[in-house]
């Protein structure tokens, strides 16, 4: 009787096993790399109805974040400015630009500019700006160097792991309250070490961010 299986099939199970191992490893690597918010959210840079530049306004002109985002310190959500806030300057500045004409139209008709939301916390999680900003966490810890961005993009993953990284070790981010909107400031500018200064502030202000589920999933 002839062999039903040719000789090479002897090693087939082993080969299949190895192949499966490699495919499995590749898929696992792909998933850990891609199926996370590090990949899905970071770098999201939608195009906005008006090419508004933070680099120009917050960087060069030197506007404080709170000139436009006026209620970050008082309210849970950070407000995007009304067209009126832009118009206070732009009724005089660059009035002949077609981009500015859109602001004018919005002010006159009362129809708001439809800015596209960049950062988003899912509806099942609770986030509050005023708590963070008043506890000495700067915008730069969560949004990156906005004052150097011609177009805003998401600089941090803002995943749950990312929130918790800071909640477990807030001393790496805390700073004096008058430096919250100064995105270029670092502890070095005051001749201090971030860690050492953060520890002091954490103790002085009794900072204790929630790590239990109900803190954020309320």
């Amino acid at each position, binding site marked *: 009787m002839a062999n039903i299986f040719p000789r090479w099939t002897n090693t087939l199970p082993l080969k299949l096993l*190895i192949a499966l191992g*490699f495919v499995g490893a590749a898929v696992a690597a792909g998933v850990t790399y891609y199926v996370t918010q590090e*990949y899905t959210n970071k770098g999201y840079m939608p195009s906005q109805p008006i090419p508004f530049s933070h680099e120009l306004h917050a960087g060069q002109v030197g506007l404080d974040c709170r000139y436009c985002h006026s209620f970050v310190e008082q309210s849970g959500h950070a407000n995007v400015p*009304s067209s009126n806030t832009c118009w206070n300057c732009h*009724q005089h*500045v660059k009035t002949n630009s077609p981009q500015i004409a859109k602001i004018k139209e919005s002010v006159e008709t009362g129809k708001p500019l439809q800015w596209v939301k960049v950062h988003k916390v899912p509806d099942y999680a609770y986030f509050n700006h005023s708590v963070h900003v008043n506890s000495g966490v700067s915008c730069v810890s969560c949004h990156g160097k906005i004052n150097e961005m011609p177009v805003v993009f998401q600089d941090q993953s803002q995943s749950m792991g990312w929130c918790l990284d800071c909640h477990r070790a807030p001393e790496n981010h805390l700073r004096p309250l008058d430096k919250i909107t100064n995105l270029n400031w670092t502890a070095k500018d005051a001749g201090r070490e971030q860690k050492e200064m953060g520890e002091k502030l954490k103790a002085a202000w009794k900072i204790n961010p929630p790590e239990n589920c109900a803190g954020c999933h309320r």
Partner: protein
Amino acid sequence: MRYFFLALLLAGVLVVGTAGFRGDKSTRTPIEIFNDMDHQAKLKPQASSRFLGNGASARKPVAGTVPMGLSIPVKAAADGGYANYGFSHGGDYYNTGRLGDFYGEGYPEQVVVDEAFLRLGKERYDINCAVCHGRSGNGVGVTSKFGVPNIANFHTPPFLDAKDPAYRANGSIFETISKGKGLMGSYGANIPVMERWAIVAWVRTLQMSRSAPLADPAVKAAWDKLNPAPVTAAK
């Protein structure tokens, strides 16, 4: 086996080629891998809704009605004085800067002018006003270089001299912040009432600072306190 590895490599290159790397800039809306309850029927602030047809998530108050959310009116709207100034709704001096038909001087009773209040005023002034009026109030902020014309200089007689026929009393400055005036737009929607009064107090402080003699020991002490010697690097 060789072909298998080649195929695997090819697949890998293909995936990285189409999916790119972490942190790549993209204008596409982020993919939601499990979007279980990411989008709920509730509306968060600044979100739009299709319910009302115009995209707004809340209705505007009906014309002629008086919002009661922030302070309870002492008088009925029909008795007058309930104009809506930004988000303040009273008709009293604190909310309007006016006493009857005149601008008030001095501060309303709700306001206690102390050091903390002046610090608040300085902070808010530097955020909202300094871009145009300058940190010292001289009317030459950054934007004057970009075409904002005729910015008021707070160190001129109409702001300093109570005997000047055009004198701007505290109440007048308050009203300018709330509603704007002439070439200046309004900041009533950006600055809460108490902070507007703090800014008024800071404008007055800036004016006073020009004439405070450094020879006066009290002034010198205050100056030294506000401007400590530069921090030398810690050992």
